[in-house]
């Protein structure tokens, strides 16, 4: 997850509980004793660990505990202390039709962005892997967008979908679609989804291509002899071998759509969230910073933490078991 660097590039840093699981799958029982020989010193390891631990405690554990704590309190709007309210922040949030609507949109948004960015990334990777001439050039040109920050991508989207000068608005107008990004809910959602997919394609492309290039020539040649149909060969031989990559990307893309698209959304809705589609993370931000609802925002944070946690565990336990590892 990108939390942190996830390297999503920008977000792209893969963050990477998925990578973590993958790496340690083989020996989960003894994660630490990597070396037969080790130094032993009573205080030196703590000395080396101190900077990292200090930062994790201050900027990870402390705020996380605070989030959980303040989700059970109601903050006085004028800053005169707070009252313990039990789980009422949670029940308020979960009963709110607005919140449930945003949750529904987030689910659709995440599913659509994940599906299309994976599908297009895979298609381009398969084609780039297949051609010999120009292979390197295609690769270079296709990965540039990885380096662009989500809000910058959002700005480009605003331009391309601009009411006066946007070529994409003019293009869809040819088909009778009067697109009003920023005013019409569905139109804004469409533009947000397109920009978010565009931004994530290079990441998936890089991983699929490196997965494809890792498939041994002998396997490909054997497949070629057994099966003339290119599509069937792809489906029965290549795709199963790509499954681990695809699984890893599924997790990364889900987290990308949930969290890293914040910049795209923030730029495209420009603080006017009222009639515009937003995701759960954006709602946490709006309630906490614009609405000053500390308790409600914290309760939403905790709900998100649980979603991320469950998603990671679920994907790891359930989906990975069905994936074939060579």
């Amino acid at each position, binding site marked *: 997850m990108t*939390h942190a660097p996830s390297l999503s590039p920008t977000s792209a840093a893969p963050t990477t509980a998925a990578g973590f699981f*993958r790496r340690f799958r083989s020996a989960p029982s003894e994660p630490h004793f990597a070396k037969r020989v080790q130094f032993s010193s009573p205080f030196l390891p703590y000395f080396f660990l101190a900077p990292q631990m200090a930062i994790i405690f201050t900027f990870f554990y402390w705020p996380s505990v605070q989030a959980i704590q303040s989700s059970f309190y109601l903050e006085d709007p004028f800053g005169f202390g707070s009252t313990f309210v039990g789980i009422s922040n949670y029940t308020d949030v979960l009963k709110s039709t607005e919140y449930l609507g945003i949750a529904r949109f987030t689910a659709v948004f995440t599913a659509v962005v994940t599906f299309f960015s994976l599908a297009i990334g895979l298609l381009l990777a398969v084609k*780039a892997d297949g051609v010999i001439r120009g292979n390197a050039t295609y690769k270079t040109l296709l990965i540039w967008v990885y380096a662009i920050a989500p809000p910058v991508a959002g700005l480009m989207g605003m331009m391309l979908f601009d009411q006066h000068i946007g070529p994409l608005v003019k293009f869809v107008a040819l088909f009778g679609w009067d697109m009003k990004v920023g005013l019409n809910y569905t139109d804004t959602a469409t533009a947000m989804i397109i920009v978010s997919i565009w931004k994530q*394609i290079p990441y998936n492309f890089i991983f699929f291509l490196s997965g494809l290039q890792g498939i041994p020539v002998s396997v490909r040649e054997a497949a070629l002899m057994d099966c003339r149909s290119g599509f069937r060969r792809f489906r029965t031989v290549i795709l199963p071998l790509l499954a681990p990559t695809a699984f890893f990307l599924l997790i990364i893309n889900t987290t990308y759509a949930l969290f890293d698209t914040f910049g795209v959304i923030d730029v495209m809705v420009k603080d006017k969230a009222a009639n515009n589609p937003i995701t759960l993370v954006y709602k946490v931000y709006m309630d906490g910073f614009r609405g000053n609802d500390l308790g409600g925002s*914290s309760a939403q944070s905790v709900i998100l933490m649980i979603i991320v946690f469950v998603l990671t565990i679920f994907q790891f336990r359930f989906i990975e078991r069905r994936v074939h590892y060579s």
Partner: protein
Amino acid sequence: MQRAKLFDHVILLMGVFIMIGPLVVALMTSSHEAADIHRNGLSILPGGHFVETYQTVLTKQGGFTGKITGLRMMMNSLILGLGFAAGKIILSMLAAYALVYFRFRFATITFWMIFTTLLLPLEVRILPSYEVMNTLHLTNTYTGLIVPLLASATGTFYFRQFFKSIPDELLEAARIDGAGPFKFFIDVIVPLSKTMMAAIFIIMFVYGWNQYLWPTLMTTDESFFTLVRGIKQILLVWVGSNIPDYNEAFALAILAMLPPVMIVMIFQRWFIKGLTESDK
């Protein structure tokens, strides 16, 4: 067979068009005048005002307080990118070294405490993080901008994995020669990790440069704005103007994407290696 190849190229060219097209349009349009863009729309051909627009964007004082220039924002972005990448490498190499090369009592619990940070992204704890920064008086400082972003363990795991792949014989040999933990780290581990460090540095620089949410929260003083953070401000200033400064907005977008795109392009091989191998 020949036709199939042609079809492959058509798909790839369409892909390139979709991915690169918007970037070309942004670059070309930024060299036209705002009024011209307002009248004629976006452009795929260069206009005559390239130098002028970029000069304005880099040196004109703007924003709400009228004090921040593009150059200043660029410098802030650079500080964030470099500071983040360097901090990440130092912290994670030290921590990974302790985890891999030392036998100590709280190794297991330390390991899991670091690992847990991978499960929860910054985005789910933004408000409490902001409160903590307020308590520590770190808002509107470079420390506040950089250090909290380091609170994730990605780098630590990359290095841990890498250190585990270093043959045990090196440590045995070093110990026979009488090398202690510090000497072994500096004379053996650091030189062996050079490629790994470079790859992670590149990835982390791009990641730091592109940060948006955290700088948005942490900086209200415009002199700390990064380019990526500034994008939002530009859009806000636009609303309400008769002829929006499309050209300047595009120029800023180009400036914000230029360094990371250049780095990815120049160090493509390292970049892809760092990205794909560290995650496997």
